[in-house]
């Protein structure tokens, strides 16, 4: 139920993001989802890609500072209140979210939230008990 996420340390300068996308494009690696957090001097680019192993290898070879970790991908209904229902369950269990980002799924009326929490296992149990659909890594990579 865990999804692999690759984070890249990015110095804030013009063209840095494009360097990364160009490296991935050349390697024919497809992006599934991404989020960028930044301050005035650096940024953290988080990526979910179709071939995580290859992406890690290529980015390392190109000298990027990266970190891998796992996140949860939760399907939610694409209508008002969809996100609220997930947060409701997690809050009740006292699970705090480090960050999250979403994208629209390929099925109609479905969105996917990528959720990063400190204790992934507990959050997975909680969400499953709450009746939510969690997507497997393989599923996300091949979406």
């Amino acid at each position: 139920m865990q999804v692999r996420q690759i984070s890249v340390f990015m110095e804030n300068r013009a063209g840095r993001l494009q360097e990364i996308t160009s490296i991935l494009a050349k390697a024919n690696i497809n992006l599934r989802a991404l989020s960028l957090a930044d301050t005035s001097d650096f940024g953290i680019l988080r990526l979910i890609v179709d071939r995580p192993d290859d992406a890690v290898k290529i980015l390392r070879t190109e000298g990027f500072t990266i970190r891998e970790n796992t996140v949860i991908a939760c399907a939610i209904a694409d209508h008002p209140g969809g996100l609220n229902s997930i947060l409701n369950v997690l809050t009740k269990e006292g699970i705090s979210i480090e960050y999250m980002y979403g994208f629209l799924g390929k099925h109609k009326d479905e969105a996917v939230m990528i959720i990063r929490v400190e204790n992934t296992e507990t959050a997975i149990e909680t969400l499953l008990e709450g009746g939510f659909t969690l997507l497997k890594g393989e599923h996300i990579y091949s979406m």
Partner: protein
Amino acid sequence: MVKYWNEHAETMSRDELEKLQLSRLNSTLHRVYDHVPFYKEQLDALGIKPDDIKTLDDFHKIPFTTKAEMQASYPYKMFAVPLDDIIRIHASSGTTGQPTVVGYTKNDLETWSELIARLLVAGGVTKKDIVQVSFGYGLFTGGFGLHYGIEKIGATVIPLSSGNTDRQLQIMQEFGSTVIICTPSYAIYLGEILADRGIGFDKIKLRVGCFGAEPWTEAMRKEIETRLNISATDNYGLSEVMGPGVSYECQAKDGMHINEDNFIVEIINPENGEVLPYGQTGELVITTLTKEGIPVLRYRTRDITSLLPKKCACGRTFIRMTKPRGRSDDMLIIRGVNVFPSQVETVLVEMAETEPHYELIVTREGALDKLEVKVELNENYFSDEMRVMHVLEEKIKNRLRNALGLTAKISLVAPKTIERSVGKAKRVIDLRDYLA
């Protein structure tokens, strides 16, 4: 193992040493008075004749020689012998303006290699060693200076010069180098690349490193010794008085023995020139005693250090100096606080989260000085969570505030993005406009 290169000189009694210093000083004074117009004018202005200087106290009456005066003598005006007798020219790197040109006679080169031989032996080098010199060969005194000392002790020298890290590592492995000579910052860089390429200690034969040409810290020594699996010693010198070989660490690694049979050293208050007692920190001043080509009297090195008069466990009687904390002209004054780059380095080396590579950028906004410290992040501490990165920045900021007494802006940069130096590291960018 041979303990000393020149046991008689390195362990002579203080009485004998002082006598030797005074007689050599007298000879130097005569030589400069007769052959260097600059010194004749300086001494005449004070009514001092060479034979008036009979004790080391009298010696304090002689005026200082400054870097600016040596620069003004460009290129040959301070030479005390005809150019005919000069067989080698070197020049300072000119990082702080006009280069200073220095000339060596045959005897000077003989003396110099003797001093280098002492530092090598004290650092643990023997005639069986294969010594890779990764200092630049050229006008810089590092490469050639070390070279002839290595030959003198009978070790094998690989005169590789600086740069081209791939080739450095290839030769180190294939030629079986057992000793490396370079700057301490380059040594750390070599260690990083070894780790990167997965070159294990079984692939290299290094056991000793003699490092100099820039100030470094005790923490950096540990880092180098671990990363390269060697014993690292420091040595000190400057081209204006000889080049490397002025002072050197022994196996006690507790201060650098000054070759006092060739130099008289003093510590002064850089603000007013007052001579300070042993143990106090101030600017190092050096007088050459044997130099023929370009002898200098009371040269202000701008290096900040202190002298340790206590006898060393190694048996050498030469006084020791502590590692220079930086140069008096490297010292930054930021919001009225004296900051030495070496203080920043000490903090960073002690933190696992950062690499010991940094850049200090000083700017002035209105009337307020601002210090920005660019620091390389250690890859293992990179986190996908911004919160964690902020905590890290705060930690660095607090440590630096404790060490420096002022708050700096921390800018984290990716590992291996700050330029590595092969010569003297450029770590300070001062963008303040002093005329504004």
